[in-house]
């Protein structure tokens, strides 16, 4: 049977309903499937068991500070741009117990968090999101220290990627070199055609999920159509960002008047950092019971837009929104490159869409570039 499976690098075609068999195979393999679903008037990621739960026939209209669901008028499974959810919410949960500690005589006893980390199958990971995961890998795994919680979840994760054919109004992954074609590591990558999926095999594990699926090798016609769809997507980006020497541009313009301008608009609400698939800042909190004898140390997401973020004894180092927005954008597009050898932005556009006042970083960069 195994010799009947395609090999990594090969491309096959399956009928759309056959995706359910892939879901079943993942479920049998012990994965918790996380996929796009319709919830609270948005397309978010949540646990699913059936392809029927996918937002089939739906899309979303996006813009600065704007997101509205719309019927597509067709039966597309993945015909929508990225919503507010990110895979980071699963690999790097917004709240995670690190350990608990109890008073033990005159001292303390520490009990590490030894919960078995979940095995996720991520369904519908876009190229920009693959790039974002690779960026967080550099932060949590590839540095001098490793976060064991992220590492365990990441190593177990199965990735069913989707080549993006529906970029939104706020998308600019092509500018960031992050999409729309999936080039980073995945187990399977789909391209959605009208009545079939073209599937690129990324790993032997991915191939095994096709065991109960009727597939055939993709022909020139299907490959041509899939390729055309991705190329079209590349040309339909709602936004562009000129990335030439962004570190130089930002480091040379730390006192640019545009920072005052954006500070007038920015609410410092932290939305952009929460929806960003790469933002990784966190805080640690101690939660004690009423006796004070038992404490849980918990890691929670933090944001450089929180005033307390920069607190040292004596005060906040970035009391003004101007400095906080500058920190965020300069980190994202400039110092991230110094720190991790890659930009911190993948061009997914979430920070533009989910900014309540519609601040658009591509516009801010263009303004700084024009008046630099």
């Amino acid at each position: 049977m195994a010799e009947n499976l395609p090999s990594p690098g090969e491309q096959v075609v399956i009928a759309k309903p056959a995706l359910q068999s892939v879901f079943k195979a993942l479920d049998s393999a012990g994965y918790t499937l996380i996929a796009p679903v319709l919830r609270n008037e948005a397309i978010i990621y949540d646990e699913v068991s059936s392809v029927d739960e996918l937002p089939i026939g739906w899309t979303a209209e996006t813009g600065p500070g704007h997101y509205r669901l719309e019927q597509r008028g067709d039966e597309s499974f993945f015909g929508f741009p990225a919503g507010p959810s990110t895979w980071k919410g699963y690999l790097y949960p917004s709240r995670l117990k690190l350990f608990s500690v109890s008073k033990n005589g005159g001292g303390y006893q520490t009990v590490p968090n030894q919960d078995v980390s979940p095995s996720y199958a991520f369904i519908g990971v876009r190229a920009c999101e693959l790039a974002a995961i690779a960026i967080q890998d550099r932060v949590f795994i590839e540095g001098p220290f490793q976060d064991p919680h992220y590492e365990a979840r990441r190593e177990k994760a199965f990735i069913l990627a989707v080549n993006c054919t529906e970029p939104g109004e706020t998308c600019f992954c092509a500018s960031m070199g992050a999409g729309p074609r999936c080039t980073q590591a995945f187990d399977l990558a789909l391209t959605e055609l009208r009545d079939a999926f073209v599937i690129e095999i990324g790993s032997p594990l991915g191939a095994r999920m096709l065991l109960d699926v009727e597939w055939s090798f993709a022909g020139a016609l299907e490959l041509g159509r899939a390729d055309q769809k991705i190329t079209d997507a590349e040309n339909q980006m709602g936004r562009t960002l000129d990335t030439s020497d962004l570190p130089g541009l930002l480091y040379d313009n730390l006192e640019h008047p545009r920072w005052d301008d954006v500070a007038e608009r920015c609410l410092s609400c932290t939305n952009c950092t929460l929806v960003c698939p790469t933002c990784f800042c966190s805080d640690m909190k101690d939660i004690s019971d009423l006796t004070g004898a038992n404490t849980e140390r918990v890691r929670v997401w933090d944001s450089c837009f929180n005033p307390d973020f920069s607190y040292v004894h004596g005060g906040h180092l970035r009391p003004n929104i101007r400095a906080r927005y500058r920190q965020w954008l300069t980190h994202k597009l400039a110092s991230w490159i110094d720190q991790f050898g890659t930009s911190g932005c993948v061009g997914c556009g979430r920070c533009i869409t989910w900014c309540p006042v519609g601040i658009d970083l591509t516009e801010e960069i263009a303004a700084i570039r024009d008046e630099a």
Partner: protein
Amino acid sequence: MATKQSTLQHIPTISLDPMLPHWAAIAKIQDETPGVATYALEFQDLAFRTAYSFLPGQFNMLYLPGIGEVAISISSDPETPHELLHTIRVAGNVTQAIERLKVGDQIGVRGPYGSAWPVEVARGEDLIFVAGGIGLAPLRPAIYHVIRHRAEYGKITILAGARSPEDMLYHDEFDAWREHDIEVIPTVDRADESWQGRVGVVPMLFYSLRPDPRNTTVFTCGPEIMMRFVAYEAMARRIPTERVFVSLERNMKCAVGFCGHCQYGPTFLCKEGPVLSFAQIEPFYNVEEF
């Protein structure tokens, strides 16, 4: 010369999870100046205590359950790591809680973290230590190092500033340091009748020095405004900014580069810092709220 970076890294022998503390008992508490005390810590795990070592200028994260964690520089001799000292000034929640502890109480410790004073690359050179207030604490391990290896260094000068005579940290050690051919020049912002030394801010002490710019390294730790003027005084004497080292302080939560709090432009102060050359930070040092 540009290769003289403070990138000496010393990664601790860590347990699987870098966020887990190691418990240490307070072996001794020594009052220093008002609001400042030095705590001797002894790891409970004998194997960890034996394996533990640190470089001068590195820091530990000190943790009190239910209160929180704080980054504190190690202030003891790196060649006797089992006598682990932290000199702590009461400044926030955690340090206030530490002040209430007694000998025998336990503290969680993670570390050592961060970059070190580049005592090895400064070998053969004249050294000027410039400290402001509690800033002498992170410098003391480097001072102990150069005393132990006195012959390997040229002229050594320590400029130590404090607000008032009673705030002068480690003043009872100054004479012992002087016995090793080290010039120690204390100065205070406000003197009293007992004070025999200089009065004025620390950077002004540079006016009495004649450093050889080709052969002098400066290590400074204190308030940022003080370090800025120390760097300017050094530059005015043509000491290259690559050989002026500062120790910076920012909010630190994780100390391992995960939490993002201690970023200073391209650097994480918990990893590439806290000790950096002035050349590394110069582009950002005058940017307000950076």
